[in-house]
């Protein structure tokens, strides 16, 4: 089934108000150009699931008022400090937070990937995460003896969104060693990908490339966005834009500064 790339705005069209949207950690390829396009479009009430953590991407979407529920294990700006809009939203009670822990999110996506209703996970018992997650259950391990274990429900997002180095015209996407993106796409109803560039030949026909390729079968749309992860890094392609991140951290510390940031870098469509 031949597939064609779309414009960025066409590609992100399935990300509807109120949908659940899965995004990866900063170092696996965050679709930041797409994120800015979503903010410009004014998407609302997203249930954002960051697998397993997020940085600028979640903070921007929160600050721009796009998020109703946030499900992840941590949000910060890493070396650039706390995530200011995330912190403000939690303290202000303006988003619903579902605190998780990294391997729990991985297990929940894997449950959806396997078509099973839940996945067990060690740990967690005695953590205060548990009483705040009524969707997580403690059972007695049927293979043990007085051995409590947590069961986590499958997590099947409406849309998965990430940025990758390249795709081909069949929609096959090269993800390299970022294999949680495969689990994410398998788990999601639809997967939308932005890429640096189109690879001229079919990625699956080259055995070396195939080993790092998510098949186009799982991909709804691809949009070409060079430097589409900017200012975040893309593995093996470019590093984080530290100066920009420092500027963001400084501006986003206040609501006014954040509004300035949006004006300058999101609504004006300015990018590196």
């Amino acid at each position, binding site marked *: 089934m031949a597939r064609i790339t779309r414009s960025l705005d066409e590609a992100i069209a399935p990300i509807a108000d109120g949908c659940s949207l899965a995004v990866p*950690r*900063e*170092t*696996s390829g965050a679709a930041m150009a797409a994120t800015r396009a979503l903010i410009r479009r004014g998407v609302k009430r997203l249930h954002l699931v960051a*697998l*397993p*953590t997020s940085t600028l991407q979640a903070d921007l979407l929160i600050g721009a008022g796009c998020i109703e529920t946030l499900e*992840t*294990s*941590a*949000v*910060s700006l*890493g*070396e*650039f400090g*706390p*995530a200011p809009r*995330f*912190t403000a939203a*939690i*303290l202000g*009670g303006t988003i619903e937070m579902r*605190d*998780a*822990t*990294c*391997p*729990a999110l*991985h297990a929940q996506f894997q449950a959806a990937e396997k078509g099973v209703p839940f996945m067990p*996970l*060690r*740990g*967690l*018992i*005695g*953590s*205060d*995460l548990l009483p705040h997650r009524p969707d997580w259950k403690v059972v007695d391990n049927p293979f043990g003896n*007085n*051995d*409590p*274990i947590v069961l986590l429900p499958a997590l099947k997002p409406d849309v998965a969104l990430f940025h990758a180095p390249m795709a081909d015209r069949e929609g096959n996407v090269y993800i390299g*060693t*970022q*294999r*949680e*993106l495969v*689990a994410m796409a398998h788990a999601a109803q639809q997967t939308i990908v932005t890429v640096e560039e189109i690879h001229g030949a079919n990625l699956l026909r080259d055995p070396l490339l195939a080993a790092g390729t998510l098949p186009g079968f799982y991909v709804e749309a691809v949009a070409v966005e060079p430097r589409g992860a*900017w*200012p975040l890094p893309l*593995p*093996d*392609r*470019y*590093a984080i*834009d*530290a*100066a*920009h991140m420092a500027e963001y951290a400084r501006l986003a510390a206040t609501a006014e500064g954040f509004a300035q940031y949006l004006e300058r870098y999101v609504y004006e469509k300015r990018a*590196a």
Partner: protein
Amino acid sequence: MKSARPETFRDEELLADVICRLIGDARHVAVGAASPIPATAALLARERSGGKPFVSLLGSRAHTFFTDGARELFDCAGQGRIDVFFLSGGQIDGEGNINLVNVGDYERPKVRFPGSFGSAYLYYVVPRVILFRVGHSRRTLVPKVDFISAPGGSPDNVFRPGGPVALVTDRCLFDFDRARRRFRLVSVHPGHNLEEIIENTGFEFDRPSDVPVTPAPSADTLRLMRTVVAPMLAEVYPQFAQSVFGVALPLPTA
């Protein structure tokens, strides 16, 4: 109170050296997010012993062997193949509980931290977890954490091969007695003293009658850290590598 210490090394260098010794003869040390000093220590441990242990730095491409995506760290720990890991906390209490979530009530917090990361799993399954916290004060080392991201101990029937072995702060080193769920002061860093530790620690802890001073890093260790380890750190911790070791910031384009 730091004037008593010779200015031949930085705090970060001392702490990395302390942690490096705690790593001991592990086969595999993994370092999570936002942990530049533990990362320094792990790489230092590898350099000191000619390539052992395996080191996995979260977020690194060069200093990790993981090829199965973000979940491999956790799967690997679940297989019992990670010997040492590092955790911190916005608050840490005297029973080894760590809090990476909030101060105050969960529903109406006064302070929000980033979140629990992988702590609610790794603290249970990695045999030797080293707690690390700079900003040693009664605000960070508390009698009881407001939110338990991961507990310092578990009932006997809870599967738990792992847990805390030590707490390294910018003032001192504690080890942890798992049976008693209690910290014990091991040494006080150069330039600090016992009265200051007691005054700035919100929980009770055991201590020997005579508290030793933490040994300073050797010249050889400092050389390894500055010349070999520091450039490696810049990939994942460019700000840290620059501010502590003067490594130039990488360009945003590769």
